[in-house]
């Protein structure tokens, strides 16, 4: 995850938002399939093999569940396949379920990619521009939470080793939790004193702060931004003009194959595989460098 992760956070944010929104609101199966394919491909690029395999199981079962649920509850459509408890299970509803499942899993995969790529510091950087105070507070919170968890584990262990309310009964457990909590409140206050001394010692609150970050908007970010805008505008215009409209009820509409629709499919397809292509390119360039050495 070198190539795509190094892109400027603002471009990344725009990219993820546009892919997810388009795939959520375009009910067209081609676009949904493209989003799913792009998301899955990119997930494979940035994840370890083992976890990808484990995740696949989860996604497939989720897929089946969503796809099957829809026809059980929705009885619209004109082609009944069979009857269940006197209710028709229709082909249209089944296909609509599949489409929803594809969309949901596509968006989930993209969310997963988002959380891998858009780390907290990138998020903070973007929102720190808007509200600088908030970004500092968030950064401090992210610092505090793991420290708090670690300390509360230590306290809990120390209390257990003294044999205080460490039995297995519910009352013991509740009391133990309460004790750890009160101890942690004292600890938090104590910790806050040190942090505030450390902040004051480094001049906090004396002047108007500047906001430093390690991210810089480079020319490649600019180029990518332009590409994204172009690739995004095609499906947006297409969707607004109704080129890719698709309905399941009462009958399944035909998949649009007009030149305009094909252009939309192509543009969105390109957009959704863009990160994987960038990763692949980086990998190939790297191999090439290594071979030259």
């Amino acid at each position: 995850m070198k190539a795509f992760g190094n892109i400027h956070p603002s471009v990344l944010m725009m990219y993820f938002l546009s892919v997810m929104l388009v795939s959520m609101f375009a009910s067209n199966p081609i676009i949904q399939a493209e989003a799913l394919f792009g998301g899955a491909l990119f997930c494979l690029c940035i994840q370890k093999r083992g976890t990808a395999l484990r995740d696949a199981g989860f996604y497939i079962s989720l897929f089946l569940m969503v796809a099957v649920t829809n026809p059980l509850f929705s009885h619209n459509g004109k082609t009944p396949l069979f009857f269940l408890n006197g209710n028709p299970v229709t082909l249209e509803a089944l296909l609509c379920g599949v489409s929803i499942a594809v969309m949901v899993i596509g968006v989930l995969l993209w969310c997963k990619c988002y959380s891998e790529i858009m780390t907290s510091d990138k998020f903070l950087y973007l929102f720190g521009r808007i509200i600088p105070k908030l970004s500092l507070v968030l950064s401090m919170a992210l610092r505090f939470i793991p420290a708090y968890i670690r300390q509360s584990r230590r306290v809990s262990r120390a209390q257990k080793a003294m044999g205080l309310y460490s039995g297995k009964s519910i009352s013991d457990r509740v009391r133990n939790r309460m004790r750890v909590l009160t101890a942690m409140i004292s600890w938090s206050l104590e910790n806050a004193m040190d942090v505030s001394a450390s902040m004051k010692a480094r001049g906090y609150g004396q002047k108007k702060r500047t906001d430093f970050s390690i991210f810089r908007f480079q020319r490649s970010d600019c180029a990518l931004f332009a590409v994204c805008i172009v690739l995004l505008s095609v499906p947006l215009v297409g969707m607004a003009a109704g080129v890719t409209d698709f309905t399941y009820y009462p009958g399944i509409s035909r998949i649009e194959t007009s030149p305009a629709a094909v252009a939309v499919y192509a543009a969105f397809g390109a957009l959704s595989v863009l990160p994987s292509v960038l990763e692949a390119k980086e990998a190939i360039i790297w191999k090439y460098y290594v071979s030259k050495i």
Partner: protein
Amino acid sequence: MEILRVEDLSFRYPKAEKPALSHIDFTVESGEFIVLCGPSGCGKTTLLRLLKKEVAPFGEKTGSIFFEGAPQESLTCAGEMGFVQQNPESQIVTDKVWHELAFGLENLGVPTDVIRRRVGEMASFFGIENWFRQKTDELSGGQKQLLNLASVMVMQPKLLILDEPTGQLDPIAASDFIATLQKLNRELGLTILLAEHRLEEVFPIADRIIMMEDGGILLNGEPRSIGPGLSKLDAAHHMSCALPSAVRIWQGLDIGGTCPLTVKEGREFLKRNYSGQTVTLPEPEYLHEEATVEMKNVWFRYERDLPDIMRGVSVKVYRGEIFSILGGNGAGKTTALCVVAGLLKAYRGKILINGKQVKDYKGNTLYRRCLAFLPQDPQTVFALDTVRADLSEMTEMMEIDKSEREKRLDEISARLGISHLLDRHPYDLSGGEQQKCALAKVLLSEPEILLLDEPTKGLDAYAKQNLRDTLRELKATGVTVLTVTHDVEFAAETADRCALFFDGEFISADTPRKFFAENNFYTTAANRMARELWKNAVTCEQVVECCKSVGGAK
């Protein structure tokens, strides 16, 4: 050129009977490396905090402080004077290393281009490049403290004030930190004012030592003059125990000559004055009772995919002995202790406490009149608002009469000398006091076996002596003590047997004399100085005794 002048400074905390500082006078020249030492509670921290006006405590202050000739009050830039505190953990403000480095400069409103340059410069000076983009939470204690130092240094201070910065670090991280300070002083000409307990390493590199006692300055002079100065005040001054081993041996022998500071000088000093062949002192055979803690082929790992921390550990700890486990950082010493305490489960092997397997102790029976564990951070032991409440909660668990409870509580507080602390909040106590109170709390369960994790961390020499005496008293009452420690000197003085934990095993377990005499590097400073004369003299007292027994100087 003088950079800091303190004139007749006195300070009293609100509602305190005694002043924390009285009539302090000293100056600091630009480029000096000054070490401030003294037992905890002598006013070092108060003094250092008063110098840095942003963190100055509230109270009655008289006298004046001048920074670069101007009164402290007129100082406007917080960056001029850097301040580093003891706890590496709680000083870090933000979640990423790069952000932490930039934090001070952001506060001063420095433009981002300048921040980028200065942060880059400092990160490479301190060797932070490799973890520059990491989360601050993932760093080791040593790295955290180095980050705290670096994030003060980016502000380009003229004077750096450090309040026991190595107190919470292991010896190797502490040496690294001290070496970095020395580099800053030598290469950048930075003026440093350092409060420190561990004098062995800072004594030789300091330009001047200021020794404090009870809120006043006891001695102020070159490192070499401190030993003689203290001897002149009182031949057996109680602060002597904090001095480096070379100085203590020189003081103990009392035969004049220049006072040595380092191991090398100490070795030459001994050679000059005493000569002869290397003698191995006779070592009586170690007598012991039956085993109380026994590990048989114990294996442990945290998770299935992680490497083994304990690989077939077998060891016996006998009744009534003090057993010290030494070993490097991250070797798994603490883990081993937690496995004995039943807090972690070994996946193979047996752990026998008084001949019964740990897992066979049902409910709380293991922690009642049997085994007690004092963790590294004594704060984790307290859960209530006063020390008394915390202690009485423990007595209530012991299923004894009400009158008996009170008696036990008073008895133990008297024994550990904490009676005057009972009504205070545990967090308001100093590190040494917290530890004593925590020890009192775990001792109330009347353990036969006491497990201690790094008991000397953050303690001054005086508190260490106290702890040693306490452990010996416990031993005399038949308690078995198992400690894990980095502190070689403490182990040598206190333990009946020492063992090295390395690569998941106890490599050797022997009496301190045999254990340390066999080691070349991993041994006490006193032993390194004297080993060519007395191979197995391990502590300063032993060396002095041996020298004296040979009879006078050559």
